[in-house]
């Protein structure tokens, strides 16, 4: 091929790639702008202090809000987190610190598989296990479903942050005669603390945005409740029912709820990014120090 033709093709491909990249980025901006523009008008004091109530409230212009959904989301997600953290952390530790254990590889395979499972199936499982056996839709069943969603995420993030903690740390511990469990719990886990917490936060954010499993388990509720054994409302599933409802006021509240959800997810996301970036930088620094010392010793 002619050289000029090759350069021309190179230019064409470059333009093509830039255009396709824009095609991906632009919708993201559009979605965020639309959510903010449409929802900002419905955010007011009532939104954070009133229950939704029956549709007639919205039609007659009485104050309605989503306080019950916000509180419900916090309760269900926290209970789910309490259930998920021990299992997730333990699996992460097993996968990273005990690679020689026969169950380690199998646990990783299962964790990967569950990570790719549609969340709606977690809802079906929680329905069959909890709702059917306790006699009705409940916040507890919702929390169990969300815990199923969280466990594989926590175990995967825990494994990956434990793996980027410098290997020399474990060598130090073992060299001064610490048993393996003390090396893990007193050296490796504390060093990876920020990363582990971030992983938990990411799992929390992911679960907080899940509507599908909750629709099959915690069902939803137009009023505020603190009873774990009764149906409870959450933001994502409320957004769905507001969006498919026929009431204009409810649509506005749906947009406003979307802002809250989006803000929460974005904040978690940026905190997570900051921590992971810092940990990776530290890990490479420590590695580089090690390498320099090695090369010095060889030099001498």
């Amino acid at each position, binding site marked *: 091929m002619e050289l000029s033709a090759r350069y021309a093709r190179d230019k064409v491909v470059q333009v093509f790639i830039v255009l396709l990249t824009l095609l991906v980025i632009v919708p993201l901006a559009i979605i965020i702008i639309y959510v903010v523009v449409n929802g900002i008008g419905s955010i007011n004091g009532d939104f954070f202090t009133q229950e939704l109530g029956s549709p007639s409230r919205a039609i007659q212009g009485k104050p309605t809000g989503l306080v019950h959904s916000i509180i419900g989301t916090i309760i269900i997600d926290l209970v789910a987190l309490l259930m998920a953290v021990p*299992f997730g952390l333990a699996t992460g530790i097993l996968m990273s610190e005990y690679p020689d254990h026969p169950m380690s590889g*199998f646990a990783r395979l299962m964790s990967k598989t569950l990570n790719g499972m549609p969340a709606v199936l977690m809802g079906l499982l929680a329905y069959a296990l909890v709702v059917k056996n306790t006699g009705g839709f409940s916040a507890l069943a919702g929390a169990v479903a969300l815990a199923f969603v969280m466990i594989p995420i926590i175990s995967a993030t825990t494994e990956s942050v434990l793996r980027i903690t410098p290997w020399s740390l474990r060598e130090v511990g073992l060299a001064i005669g610490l048993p393996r469990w003390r090396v893990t719990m007193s050296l490796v886990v504390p060093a990876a603390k920020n990363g582990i917490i971030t992983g938990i936060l990411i799992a929390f954010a992911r679960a907080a945005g899940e509507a599908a499993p909750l629709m099959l388990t915690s069902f939803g509720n137009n009023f505020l409740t603190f009873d774990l054994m009764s149906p409870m409302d959450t933001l994502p599933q409320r957004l769905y029912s507001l969006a498919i409802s026929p009431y204009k006021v409810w649509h506005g509240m749906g947009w406003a709820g979307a802002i809250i959800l989006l803000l929460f997810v974005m904040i978690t996301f940026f905190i997570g990014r900051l921590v992971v970036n810092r940990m990776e930088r530290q890990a490479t620094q420590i590695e580089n120090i090690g390498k320099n010392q090695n090369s010095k010793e060889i030099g001498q």
Partner: protein
Amino acid sequence: MIDTLDHSQLIKRLAPARYRRPGDRVFKTIIVALSSGIILLALAMAVVLWIEASPTFSKFGYLNFLTSSTWDPVAGIHGALPFIIGTLVTSFGALALAVLPALAVAIFTSEYAPRWLATVINYLVDLLAAIPSVVIGIWGIFNFAPFMRDAVYMPIYEWAYEHAQWMVPMLGNPSGYNIITATLILALMIVPYTVALSRDAIRLVPKEQREAAWALGSTRWEVMKLAVLPYARSGIIAGILLSLARALGETMAIAMLIGNSNRLPFTLFGPAATMPSLIINEFREAVEPLHYTSIIAVGFYLFLITIVINMIATLVQRKLAGQRKL
């Protein structure tokens, strides 16, 4: 020397049996016991869904349920074919739309863009993955679907009505909530996964590969085509498969945008349904035991499809890791 040993070999070397203390045994037992939770969870998923769905399977048969196209809860006849077709059409359609732009983003950020721009774009794409499905669904219901109806579906439908009558039955009534809307939104939602996984694959390509191609006098695109993409190929394929698994299971946005019709044949502009959207829409209203078990049976097949695709992706990735070691 140490560099050539991997993780597990080092641990074995550093902790010989005589250093194991009672504390070690207790800690390990706790860790293993808790970890078996995740294995139990995966097994429970398969077993419980299968048991719950068994009345449907014994009534309609495993294969017959899959291939029968009537879903009529009132008459007590259930077949999953409409939802299987809906799921496959939307997922593969979305994948076809998403792969090229996703590869472009991955190539652009790893090879073309200056570092700051690449960081910004990567942040944005990852953020797109973090947006809850239901938020995208709300945008789709109120903005995207009406816009598509007015700007695309209606004009095409009117044109077909005037000039090509034979197309009208294929198009169906233009409603805005249809397979095309759902596929487009689905494509947008899986792009971040495809980008992230192909980016990782491209990053793993050794510098020497690129340098060799540059040294031969290649243009930037030729470096990509000759050295980078072939090397990253299996990683990219695994990434595409994992994105497909995501697409198959995507629930809320699709349930909000596909219009929900259980009757074949689906038309391009008319309502349709997928397996997850069926579960969301009918589960809460399933009073009849057979209706309930049939919805679970659809969930069971969704589980099987997802597992198979995940397994294939893992195999492809493992093959990739094997190549790396050589």
